[in-house]
């Protein structure tokens, strides 16, 4: 072969590779994410992006069906005894981990213990746990100090929840997230690789043993029909949309509201509304500053704000938001209008009078917001104008998110800060219910209601108590809710089997391409 022949061959090979390039990914679903997850360890990480990826790999004892009710996943059943103080959970047999080991009570015990000590939401339940034991090869017994009503909801919530790992990977595990070589679960997909800034890749787990029953929300049959799931960080939204239209991605998340109408009308794009709305919160400082214990002043601020303009500015199309004061959305079992008369008055004159009565003399009120989330900032600008109109002296401080998180832990640094909250299936999971969450709302009235709320296992009684708690939130105003926002994702019409509305995190088992 002479030089010229070799040179031509190289050219032909390159051209062929160029032409064939589109077929390389035939068995791969390419998901354009907003960024990279901080880690995929579900027990300690609460990032939604992390859960979107990780819930294909890791499973808990319970999960949620389409109506947000907790149902068994790795658990095959349970008995509640001793007036709710003892919970005996039986496990499904024949379930294998991705490393080939059988899942037994030894693994569940190790997972629950680590979650209870270090998990993001574990302390909520484990502060009330007396003991947890493996009482059989496929049986776990949890003994509570007092009956704890929301236990199953907490167990079913995989985000920061009790994902079941093999006991072998949890030796010496602490609060520090597990390293990728320990990402071993029981889910329909197994961890393949994480290439920084390129992708996180999962492969189908051929020995997966699905739960019985028809697919229903996250429950029932799970079948991995696509070989590979590839989650690719595409931070620019214009590129996510263009890339999907160009066929470079099959699914793209977090698309802004102002593109919704055009994309919804585009036959080459499928829009998928998320069923569980997110909601934005403005926390007030209960530990220090002018708002500490001054509930009248907080109510004055609440009265000054009309939430609708903030939602219009930050989101856009009416279809994507609801000016809903209830902390859980319409149609949900926890939805209540209790206290919501004060949700969105937008009464500047009334607010001014209330503020004067509360002793407000025009001192600066420090409001922290981050530009990392455009909707936080947009809302803050609208709120600031409305509060200024009611005579409040707002000192708007704009930070990046990492700085805001650092500063909000220092109670002398702020009076209000903006954040947002994902949909949760039980109000006990809303951050304002946590006494230690910045804002530090821990009044005796709250403590009394919270104790009753967690002690009860009766759904009707719990609902009635939650009504009282929400009314108390509107009275003591530890936080202000802006409204419900229905985020949406887009997909290629080639994807078959996608739920028309995802619960919270999209899933790709039972989906084909």
């Amino acid at each position, binding site marked *: 072969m002479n030089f010229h022949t070799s040179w031509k061959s190289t050219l032909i090979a390159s051209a062929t590779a160029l032409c064939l390039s589109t077929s390389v990914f035939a068995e791969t679903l390419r998901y354009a994410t907003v960024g990279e997850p901080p880690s995929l360890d579900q027990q300690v990480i609460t990032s939604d992006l992390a859960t979107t990826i990780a819930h294909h790999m890791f499973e808990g004892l319970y999960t949620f069906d389409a109506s947000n009710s907790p149902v068994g996943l790795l658990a095959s059943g349970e008995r509640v005894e001793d007036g709710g103080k003892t919970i005996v959970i039986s496990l499904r047999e024949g379930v294998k981990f991705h490393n080939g080991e059988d899942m037994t009570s030894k693994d569940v015990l190790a997972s629950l213990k680590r979650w209870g000590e270090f998990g993001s939401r574990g302390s909520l339940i484990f502060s009330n746990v007396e003991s947890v034991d493996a009482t059989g090869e496929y049986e776990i017994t949890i003994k509570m100090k007092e009956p704890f009503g929301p236990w199953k909801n907490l167990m079913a919530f995989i985000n920061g929840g009790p994902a079941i790992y093999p006991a072998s990977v949890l030796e010496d595990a602490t609060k520090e997230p597990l390293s990728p070589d320990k990402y071993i679960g029981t889910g329909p997909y197994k961890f393949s690789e994480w290439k920084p*800034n390129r992708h996180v890749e999962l492969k189908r787990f051929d020995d997966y043993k699905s739960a019985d029953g028809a697919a229903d929300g996250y429950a029932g049959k799970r079948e991995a029909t696509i070989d590979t799931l590839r989650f690719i960080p595409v931070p620019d939204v214009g590129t996510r949309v263009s890339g999907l239209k160009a066929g470079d991605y099959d699914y793209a998340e977090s698309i802004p509201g102002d593109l919704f109408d055009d994309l919804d009308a585009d036959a080459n794009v499928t829009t998928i509304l998320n069923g569980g709305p997110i909601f934005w919160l403005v926390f007030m400082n209960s530990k220090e500053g002018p708002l500490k214990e001054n509930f009248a002043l907080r109510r004055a601020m609440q009265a000054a704000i009309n939430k609708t303009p903030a939602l219009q500015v930050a989101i856009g199309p009416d279809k994507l938001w609801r000016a809903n004061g209830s902390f859980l959305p319409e149609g949900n079992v926890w939805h209540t209008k209790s206290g919501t008369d004060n949700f969105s008055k937008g009464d500047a004159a009334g607010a001014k009078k209330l503020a004067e009565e509360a002793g407000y003399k025009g001192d600066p009120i420090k409001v922290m917001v981050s530009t990392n989330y455009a909707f936080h900032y947009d809302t803050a600008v609208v709120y600031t104008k409305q509060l200024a109109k009611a005579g409040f002296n707002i000192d708007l401080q704009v930070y990046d998110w990492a700085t805001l998180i*650092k500063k909000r832990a220092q109670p002398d640094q702020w009076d209000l800060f903006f954040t947002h909250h994902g949909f949760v299936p039980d109000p006990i999971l809303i951050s304002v219910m946590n006494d230690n969450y910045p804002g530090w709302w821990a009044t005796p009235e709250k403590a009394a209601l919270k104790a009753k709320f967690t002690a009860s296992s009766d759904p009707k009684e719990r609902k009635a108590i939650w009504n009282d708690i929400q009314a108390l939130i509107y009275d003591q105003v530890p936080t202000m809710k802006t409204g419900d926002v229905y985020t949406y994702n887009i997909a290629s019409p080639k994807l078959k089997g996608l739920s028309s509305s995802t619960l919270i995190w999209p899933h790709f088992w039972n989906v084909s391409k």
Partner: protein
Amino acid sequence: MLAFTIKRILATVPTLIAASMLIFLFIHLIPGDPAAILLGDTATPEEIAVLTKQMGLDQPVYVQYLKWLTNLLQGDLGTSIFFQVPVLSVIADGAETSGFLALMTMIWIIVLGIPIGAIAATKHGTWIDQITSGAAMFAASVPTFWLGLYLILIFAVGLGWLPSSGYPSIFEEGGLANLRYLLLPSLTLAAPNAALIIRLVRASMLDVQREDYVRTARSKGLHPVRVAYKHVFRNALIAVAAAFGFTFAALVSEAVVTETVFSLPGIGRTVVQSILRRDYPVIQGVILVIVVLYMVVNLLVDLAYSWLDPRVSLK
């Protein structure tokens, strides 16, 4: 030249130590810590404090610096807090993308910038000069994110000729053909820099054309092409060579936007994301590598001076 090179390399040692201290100090002065980012919004300050301690980030800054420096001297830049892989491998992976992107961009800049600038200078005052100068002004003024998005719309969404974003390594499936992923990003990144070079080559050649030795060359009856190439163009390149040093610096900073728009796993995007997440080991490692690169490029530019202009002595 050898003595000069050795001297310059030795001079980089104290500069690097000072740079490493400044980098470390500034990064740790920024509020925020990776533990809070890892644990997310629902974490309480107590939970964040527990993880901060477990990660050793509660220790005094000078202790953390000395640990980092000790490891650095052994060739260990540490482990990324978020990716949980060695920083060197994060840099190596990003370097492949950024290296090819810079190379292709420089090729565009040279291929487009120098000939067009030279033609504009030789056709000074004509319609060709007017058009090339106007085009250069346009390319210099257009924001890179705007140009990038339009190139994606035209060549990826509209015509379907090129991929919209991403870059699989050339060591993966697709091999060298994966370089097509960098065609649009490199064009985007090259546009403002090529415009700068066009303007510079044109202005520099026009200056040189007024020199006495050029007039002498013409009066000797040399062919105009020989005068333009040997006497004008080559001497005009001295100023252009210096500009390439600045252009490299500009490439590093402008690449952040381009890498974001085209979702490229390059160094620029890595460092920005690491800053937002306070991934200290990656930030420190990447910035240190960039500092070294700047020093190397500046050294090469100085060496190029003496090659282009023998009157310049290296001391």
